């Protein structure tokens, strides 16, 4: 516990270099640390009257510092709505979200900006995540400015950008003066991670960051997310529809259906020994390699 506390404090200051390589450290259990983000009865309703639609329905959750959480759900399960609420881009209709144990207050712009220093995001579509009129330098410089590095000398800024790019295996010298759309999807998504590396938020919300990149780039991106967690101690909330991916990467898995969490717990428990019928169905419907894929038991969908 104490080891982690010091680790987290250290990570709060960007100047401190992360020294020890992660593989030398023993595997830590991140599922019991201090609370980072939690929700109590979080609900979001769209529309009124007959058109009323409850997208997220009274969900409770506790995400700990350094925890790698996956929220798994199919399209329409409300996972994207939930992620927008966690980010503060969408108002909560009912219930409250607690940030570091205290109720989150984002009523004013200044408070919102303060909150956004603690939580950042990577989105699904790298091609839509960049303003195509801005060069890569501008994207990264903006992050440095946001962290209060506005008045640093330019050389220092370049040094920081180079470091961030090398963290994601990109060469800043090759990227400078280029536009994001000149890169491949995988490279663009890695640049997004470089952005997070510069911002060093407490929480990273990754909304299907690998669903639009190729399998080969996917492994690289997942590795980078893991090292963000291991080296900086970031809490990562990973939103995905791919239960195999969620199992591979996360400590804790939340299964979402129709705006509710139907099951949650440690990844091994939830995936290898699912209790909720929905989780069972989800797992049985995914094609597998070592186990046979049961094509015959199919829940008839409603036409």
């Amino acid at each position, binding site marked *: 516990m104490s080891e982690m506390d010091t680790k987290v404090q250290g990570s709060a200051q960007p100047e401190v270099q992360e020294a020890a390589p992660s593989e030398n450290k023993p595997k830590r259990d991140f599922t019991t640390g201090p609370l980072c983000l939690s929700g109590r009865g979080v609900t979001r309703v769209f529309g009124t009257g007959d058109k009323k639609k409850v997208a997220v329905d009274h969900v409770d959750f506790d995400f700990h510092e350094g925890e790698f959480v996956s929220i798994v759900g*199919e*399209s329409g399960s409300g996972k994207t709505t939930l992620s927008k609420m966690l980010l503060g881009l969408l108002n909560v209709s009912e219930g409250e979200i607690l940030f570091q144990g205290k109720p989150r207050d984002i009523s004013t712009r200044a408070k919102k900006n303060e909150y956004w220093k603690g939580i950042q995001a990577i989105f699904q579509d790298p091609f839509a995540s960049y303003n195509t009129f801005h060069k890569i330098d501008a994207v990264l410089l903006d992050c440095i400015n946001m962290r209060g590095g506005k008045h640093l000398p330019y050389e220092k800024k370049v040094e920081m950008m180079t470091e961030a790019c090398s963290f994601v*295996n990109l060469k800043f010298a090759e990227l400078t003066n280029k536009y994001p759309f000149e890169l*491949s*999807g*995988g*490279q663009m998504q890695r640049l997004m991670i470089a952005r997070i590396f510069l911002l060093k938020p407490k929480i990273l919300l990754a909304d299907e960051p690998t669903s639009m990149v*190729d*399998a*080969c*780039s*996917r*492994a*690289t991106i*997942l*590795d980078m997310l893991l090292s963000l967690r291991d080296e900086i101690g970031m809490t990562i909330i990973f939103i995905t*529809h*791919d*239960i*195999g*991916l*969620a*199992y*591979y990467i996360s400590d804790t898995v939340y299964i979402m259906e129709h705006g509710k969490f139907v099951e949650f717990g440690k*990844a*091994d428990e939830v*995936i*290898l020994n699912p209790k909720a019928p929905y989780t069972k*169905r*989800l*797992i049985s*419907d*995914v*094609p*597998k*390699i*070592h*186990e046979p*894929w049961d*094509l*015959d038991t*199919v*829940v008839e*969908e*409603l*036409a």
Partner: protein
Amino acid sequence: MGKVMLEVKNLKTKYITRFGEDVYSVDGVSLKIEEGKSLGIAGESGCGKSTLALSMMGYYFAPLHYTSGDIIIDGKNISGMDPDKVRTTILGSEIAYIPQAAMNALNPTMKIIRFIEDVIHAHNPKASKKEIRELAEERFAELGLGKEVLDRHAVELSGGMKQRTVIAVSTILSPKVLIADEPSSALDVTSQKMVIRMMRELMEKGYIKSMMFITHELPLLYNVTDDIAVMYAGQLVEYGTAKEMVFDPIHPYSHGLMGSILVPEEGTRGMNLTAIPGTPPNLKRPPQGCRFAERCKYAKPECFYTAPAERMFGENGTRMHRCLMSEDQLRDIYSKENGGAQA
């Protein structure tokens, strides 16, 4: 050995861009599908797998252009045929194609039965409405779709249902080959399973004689098709049976792809995922040597200037890989690597 339903010999097609540059997106592909068999094509986006599907139908329209090679469907060579003739005599009856967004192609103002009438009339203008309805009702019932679907509009159906309907409509003439390009990737897992189950039924009941399935999802291919071919930069780099390809991939590229499979099974958690750094080559100027050399961690100097030929191996010589190193050399390298990781 069954009858060969679809054979492609050294097919080459290219795109011509607005600026007159050639993009060699399918560059010498040869493959064979026997009756009752299915072939899966895997590869990352931009490797030319969708272009291969388009090229195989023999129906070319700008910017895609035919260069050379043969496409033989059940003994009939369709390459170089007049596009209009291809459209009226080949498409639908000999070869059917389902693109990824097929379900969005249904005109929302028309009932499903009208699409079936259109498809049949294109090949047999004399068919009566009654005959068509009988055929359609029988086929839909066989495929578990329910004949009431015929009188519905596309908007009344869910995404998965729409996709299955499209497949049923486009295979109504019992084509010899079905080419499905990512038919289920836009769907959620349950609908995906239904689509796959229906395709299996189509094969089992003989409504389609053979199938080519294109997707980037390897676990899906493993469960759906008999054989898998891996495509890279416009060429096939390896093929074999699904089992061989997943558990004994030879080519460094397929080895990398298979090493990145993620399924919710015991043992996948925390395993080492293989990453392939870099990006595929620009097909406007394909590299002189092996197309994968730039990204291959086992590449030797000669790889950069010697283009590897297709190399047959395996028990009956039914497997192929396209690498300068022999399969034994490559297997050696992989087992050493694994041993190193375990130690």
